[in-house]
């Protein structure tokens, strides 16, 4: 089962298109069932959750964050699913559903009255209980516009734990350290850092926690926007033991002494 999330932004809205059918039925063996989506967030101690309207099999639903209960407005809200009503699973335990290739995704969007930007994404429930790190090599920082870094993290423990993401250039020089929390849609305005981004790419890394790194750019009048995530290191490899090379890369960036 995948989990989805809303990308909060101060001057725009967010939504997710959720589908109760796979993109390609040839590579999905799941038997489709009606699902009950839950919007949930952590208050630092426990999960607070709200059941949303059922999505029947072969149907989809556009969920806007603004349509959720008022108490979720300033919270980092995720969406998971159950097969039965009133059965939110507090352990966020993975349901055996949404197994497909390509991945069973949501269109995750930031929009306003002028335009909209989105990407096809998900937070795999399979990584909730794992100790994951982050090495995100990004060429997407655009200093001519407003550029934001999103670090989406979700774990199976509702406590909000502090961790840091280091921003480095390719010469291992640390440019900034960003304070993040688990179970949070962390957002940073990179223009506010005391640094002029001029290189072709930068590395965002954390050895404590990982998640989904996203890079969002917009013009100051919010009429032009773009968003994309970086792919995990194993995407540079085709076939064979891909995870071996992911380990090599992560070890390189996480072990190196930072200047």
């Amino acid at each position: 089962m995948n989990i989805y999330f809303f990308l909060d932004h101060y001057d725009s809205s967010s939504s997710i298109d959720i589908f109760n059918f796979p993109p390609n039925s040839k590579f999905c063996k799941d038997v489709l069932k009606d699902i009950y989506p839950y919007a949930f967030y952590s208050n630092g101690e426990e999960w607070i959750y709200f059941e949303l309207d059922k999505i029947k099999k072969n149907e989809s639903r556009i969920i806007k964050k603004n349509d959720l209960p008022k108490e979720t407005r300033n919270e980092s809200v995720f969406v998971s699913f159950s097969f039965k009503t009133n059965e939110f699973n507090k352990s966020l335990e993975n349901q055996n559903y949404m197994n497909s290739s390509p991945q069973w995704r949501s269109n995750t969007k930031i929009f306003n009255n002028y335009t909209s930007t989105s990407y096809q994404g998900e937070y795999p429930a399979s990584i909730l209980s794992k100790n994951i790190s982050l090495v995100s090599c990004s060429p997407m920082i655009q200093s001519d516009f407003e550029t934001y870094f999103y670090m989406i993290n979700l774990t199976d423990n509702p406590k909000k734990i502090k961790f840091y993401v280091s921003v480095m250039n390719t010469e291992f020089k640390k440019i900034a350290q960003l304070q993040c929390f688990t179970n949070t849609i962390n957002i940073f305005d990179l223009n506010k850092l005391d640094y002029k981004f001029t290189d072709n790419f930068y590395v965002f890394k954390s050895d404590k926690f990982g998640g989904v790194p996203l890079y969002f750019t917009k013009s100051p009048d919010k009429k032009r926007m773009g968003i994309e995530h970086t792919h995990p290191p194993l995407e540079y490899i085709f076939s064979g033991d891909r995870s071996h090379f992911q380990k090599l890369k992560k070890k390189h960036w996480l072990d190196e002494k930072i200047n």
Partner: protein
Amino acid sequence: MKKLIKHLISKDILLFLRNNLNLRPLGYSYLKKNIISISDFFFWNTQNKFDTKINITNLASQVLPKIHQDCNVIFIFFDSNGNIIFKNEINLKYFQSYSFLVSKYCPNNFGSVAIFHSFKNYKELKDHGSFVTEKGYVGYNYDNGPWSYVHGNNSSLSFSADMKIFPLLSSTLLKTNSYIPQVRFDDCNESSLIFNNPLDKDLRTTVNLYDKNWVKLDHIHEITKPKNTKILHLGDSKKSYVEIKSNMILFRPMVLKKYQTYFDIFHG
């Protein structure tokens, strides 16, 4: 007996039977001998105030960071009719990255590009049965606006030591492969699908448009010749879902949506 049958029937024939009889089909073809590099087939567009920015990095450093070595990168640009219109070759030092605007070399046009990396020391990759694959990132903008980046989604072409290009995605005889991008189309009036064909045969597609209750509104038949690229406008019907039936097993077009002041582009 099974071993004997396997010896008698070539891998390619077995793949053909698996895919066409839908018996545990495979999205990728078997790799040819002497393959050294893999690439997506990236869409580019420099017409009507659009531009495209390609960002690459030394992939040898990314996957084998302990080895200090240069990486040779070959760009092969195809126009929308599948003709090679520009080739370039550069050398990247250890962890060096490089970006450029496509409009500088291929102005007022659109098409697709393959990007292949090669380097001397790839023994560890070979030992693990792996290959480097270029997955982007490629940025698109309009009228000097912010870049909307898209990463690669499908390793599509392979490149051999003797500089030959082979399609990597597999196909079927009939249009038996269905793909429904997981995005709703009812939030904008103008949307398109971007088709490019990395195969050596025609890509045959039927695009079915549905409203939110799965009532069929329209359909579009399209044939995309090898290495061609098409921007398929979906018309102004009140569609919510798009289903693409094709003869390519893992066919996943890009989606382009136009809004009042800018556009959104992403992999379906």
